[in-house]
């Protein structure tokens, strides 16, 4: 159920470090198959990497449960929080995530910046992955040996080589403050209400509507993959575009999940704090119109 960004980098590095990747199954409704996942974790497992929330279906994974099994087997857990951190309260300590990543552009912040959280003792064990200014304490030339001796900076600076994205980090911080001021619990509640309303409204309006993934909105964030019988996702998106309604069409960087659902592609509506019920009414009205085509 992963975004390509939680598949492709691991595939790349597995060729260099020569490790095997095992993929857990998903159920027919798009939820994670926890039994299969847990059965695949063993004492040989080094790292588990999973999304907190699916970017295709909006399904929220029980990462705490997976993390417990991972740690019992001596494995680490990396959580892709790109779709959860912007939409709900997330406590890395409560989840016991060893690492978590999220992106600025998914949470009212700028593109080109994100956050990688790591447990401090893990980060301190790790070597820098790139070199440059700021990530060192000393770079000393030894006159006798003709060699350079380098002393790394403290965490987190040892991972932040060169001039950082200052504008991006200031802007992301402002976005975080803005969201925290609203309250992450309030955001989650609002999105869940909107999603429930959208599901009902769309189902009432459109006879040819196909909703993908679980219909249990309690398991979901504000993401809704759908289709209309007889139309491609791109037809739907371009038609909505004429009404100033922007959705995503295609694979949404989750092609394996589309293979599992046997879908050529899908349309995806995603809701956030700036969307309203009135907009959903308008959206459903346009869907009703296009299904006449």
């Amino acid at each position, binding site marked *: 159920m992963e975004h390509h960004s939680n598949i492709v980098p691991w595939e790349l590095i597995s060729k260099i470090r020569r490790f095997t990747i095992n993929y857990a199954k998903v159920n027919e409704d798009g939820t994670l198959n926890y039994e299969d996942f847990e059965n695949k974790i063993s004492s040989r497992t080094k790292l588990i990497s999973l999304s907190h929330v699916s970017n295709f279906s909006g399904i929220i994974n029980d990462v705490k449960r997976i993390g417990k099994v991972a740690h019992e087997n001596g494995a680490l857990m990396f959580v892709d929080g790109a779709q959860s951190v912007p939409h709900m309260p997330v406590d890395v300590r409560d989840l016991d995530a060893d690492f978590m990543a999220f992106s600025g552009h998914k949470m009212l912040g700028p593109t080109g910046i994100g956050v990688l959280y790591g447990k401090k003792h893990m980060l301190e064990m790790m070597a820098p992955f790139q070199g440059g200014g700021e990530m060192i304490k000393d770079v000393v030339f030894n006159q006798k040996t003709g060699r350079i001796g380098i002393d790394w900076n403290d965490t987190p600076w040892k991972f932040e080589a060169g001039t950082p994205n200052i504008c991006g980090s200031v802007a992301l911080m402002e976005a975080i403050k803005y969201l925290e001021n609203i309250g992450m619990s309030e955001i989650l509640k609002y999105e869940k209400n909107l999603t429930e309303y959208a599901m009902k409204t769309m189902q009432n309006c459109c006879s040819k509507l196909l909703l993908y993934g679980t219909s249990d909105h309690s398991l979901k964030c504000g993401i809704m993959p759908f289709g209309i019988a007889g139309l*491609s996702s791109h037809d739907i998106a*371009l038609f909505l575009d004429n009404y100033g309604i922007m959705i995503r069409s295609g694979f949404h960087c989750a092609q394996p999940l589309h293979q599992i659902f046997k879908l050529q592609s899908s349309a995806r509506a995603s809701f956030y704090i700036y969307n309203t019920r009135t907009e959903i009414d308008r959206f459903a009205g346009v869907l009703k119109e296009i299904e006449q*085509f």
Partner: protein
Amino acid sequence: MVTVEDYVARIEETCGEEKGSVVTLKYNKKDEAIAKIIKKAKLKKSLSGIIFELEFQGISFRMFSSGKAIFKNVKNKESLHDLLAALLL
């Protein structure tokens, strides 16, 4: 000399097993281009003046009033370029 590039801003591949191409017309030329396309191609159906299903040289495609068109089952980029040339020039 007028070329396809005078009308077309960009061509992108859609994702999906049945790969298609989305042709985006240049904003300042889109009305002229749409008029030419609709005049030359056979209209199969349309809805609300927004979406038009058309056929030209045995190829079905969908044109949108926003200035985008989706072509499927066109052999390759060269064939699509030739088709666009026949439609637009």
